[in-house]
């Protein structure tokens, strides 16, 4: 029996039942965790933390000492197995709850949405608790769902003794309430901001797709959306045709700082940059590849050569070419050699004589 706990005969009987049940409880904790983990993954819901535990005998004995008479049998204690899910946003708590409802049987009589229990003139900051059972049967278990901020609140109030046995003066309770109200507001604002940003992202994507490119500022988000339209595909295919090469796809986002360094401010500017330099970039590539039998290229070839040609046409010379390689691949002395190589390959191309 746990130290410093005095249990009556009924309490001791419940502990005996608990010991008998403990292996099954461990298995239940793992199985419930696995089922929920899989369902969350399938729905693409990322949570900050997910944990499971079987109540310790010490903790159970403490509970039984306080209110053992309330439980007729071990089956009446619903938190012997506990799962806790901590989400980023408050609306994700509801999504997790919806998934739990789909995969587990919920005991609605004992489940509590503490978020809805507060008086209108009081603040509280609690989580959603479901009492669940696996669809295949077995003992019930508790599923706690809360946001990261709710978790911080819960942990800190526990640490500061908010729920301890000492009666807290009203002025301090009020300070707790003010903090809880603030936390609720922050949680709601984070969720609202996420929705606003998602909406903004959709608007930008729509503008990119509808061709209103001059109205779309160049940024990481808009450039990513623009790349979805595969704007370098045509040039890449033309280049690949030189040696019947295959094209290996690579991320093009590392080129964004290069485009920004050219002073391109909108996606429309990027489109013009492609239109104005494609033919010359193709000519540069032909001068490089036609004398080789290289038949594999990365999908960055077109954009890289567009950048190099742009630099040469703007009179950027050796320093400008090296700066492009430095930005994309990091600064090395070898980039100076590459700049020399490009200067040599481009020397006889038509655009060099017209610049």
């Amino acid at each position: 029996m746990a130290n410093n706990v005095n249990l009556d005969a009924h309490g001791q009987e419940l502990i005996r039942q608990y010991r008998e049940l403990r292996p099954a409880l461990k298995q239940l904790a793992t199985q419930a965790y696995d089922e929920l983990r899989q369902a969350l993954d399938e729905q693409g819901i990322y949570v900050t933390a997910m944990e499971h535990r079987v109540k310790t005998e010490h903790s159970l004995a403490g509970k039984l000492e306080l209110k053992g008479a309330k439980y007729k049998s071990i089956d009446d204690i619903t938190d012997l197995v506990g799962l806790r899910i901590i989400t980023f946003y408050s609306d994700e708590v509801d999504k997790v709850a919806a998934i739990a409802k789909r995969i587990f049987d919920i005991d609605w009589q004992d489940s509590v949405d503490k978020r809805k229990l507060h008086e209108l003139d009081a603040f509280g900051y609690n989580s959603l608790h479901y009492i669940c059972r696996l669809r295949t049967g077995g003992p019930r278990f508790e599923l706690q769902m809360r946001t990261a901020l709710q978790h911080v609140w819960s942990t800190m109030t526990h640490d500061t003794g908010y729920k301890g046995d000492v009666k807290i003066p009203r002025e301090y309770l009020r300070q707790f309430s003010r903090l809880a109200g603030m936390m609720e507001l922050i949680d709601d604002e984070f969720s609202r901001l996420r929705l606003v940003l998602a909406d903004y992202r959709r608007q930008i994507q729509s503008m990119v797709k509808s061709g209103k490119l001059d109205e779309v500022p160049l940024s990481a988000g808009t450039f990513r959306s623009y790349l979805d339209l595969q704007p370098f595909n045509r040039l890449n295919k033309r280049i690949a045709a030189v040696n019947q090469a295959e094209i290996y796809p690579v991320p093009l986002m590392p080129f964004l700082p290069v485009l920004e360094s050219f002073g391109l401010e909108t996606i429309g500017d990027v489109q013009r940059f492609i239109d104005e330099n494609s033919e010359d970039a193709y000519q540069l590539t032909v001068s490089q590849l036609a004398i080789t039998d290289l038949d594999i290229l990365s999908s960055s070839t077109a954009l890289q050569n567009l950048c190099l040609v742009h630099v040469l046409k703007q009179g950027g010379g050796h320093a400008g070419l090296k700066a492009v390689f430095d930005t994309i691949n990091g600064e090395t002395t070898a980039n100076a050699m590459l700049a020399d190589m490009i200067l040599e390959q481009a020397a006889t191309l038509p655009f060099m004589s017209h610049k």
Partner: protein
Amino acid sequence: MKTTIQEQDGNMVAILEGSLDTAAVPETEAAMSPLLDVAGKDIILDCTDLQYISSGGLRIFLGILKSAQAKGGQVFITGMNNDVRAVFAMTGFINIFKFK
């Protein structure tokens, strides 16, 4: 073409010497195949004495990179001469690999 694989400072290192032209691809691919099973270590492709690399050679490098990345590992290339570096630049492979 000579390929030597050895462990150095906790990394797996492939030392490539000679010309990795089309004819040398099959034997080099076989020699480097143990690198496809490497997990928990970074891979270094030492190209100090590599004189030339063909498309087939690039494909071997790419296969090793994809295999390492799938296991959370990294592949670094060291000591490329100017001719080999030029091939990496022309094909855009310079944007795929990390160099030391």
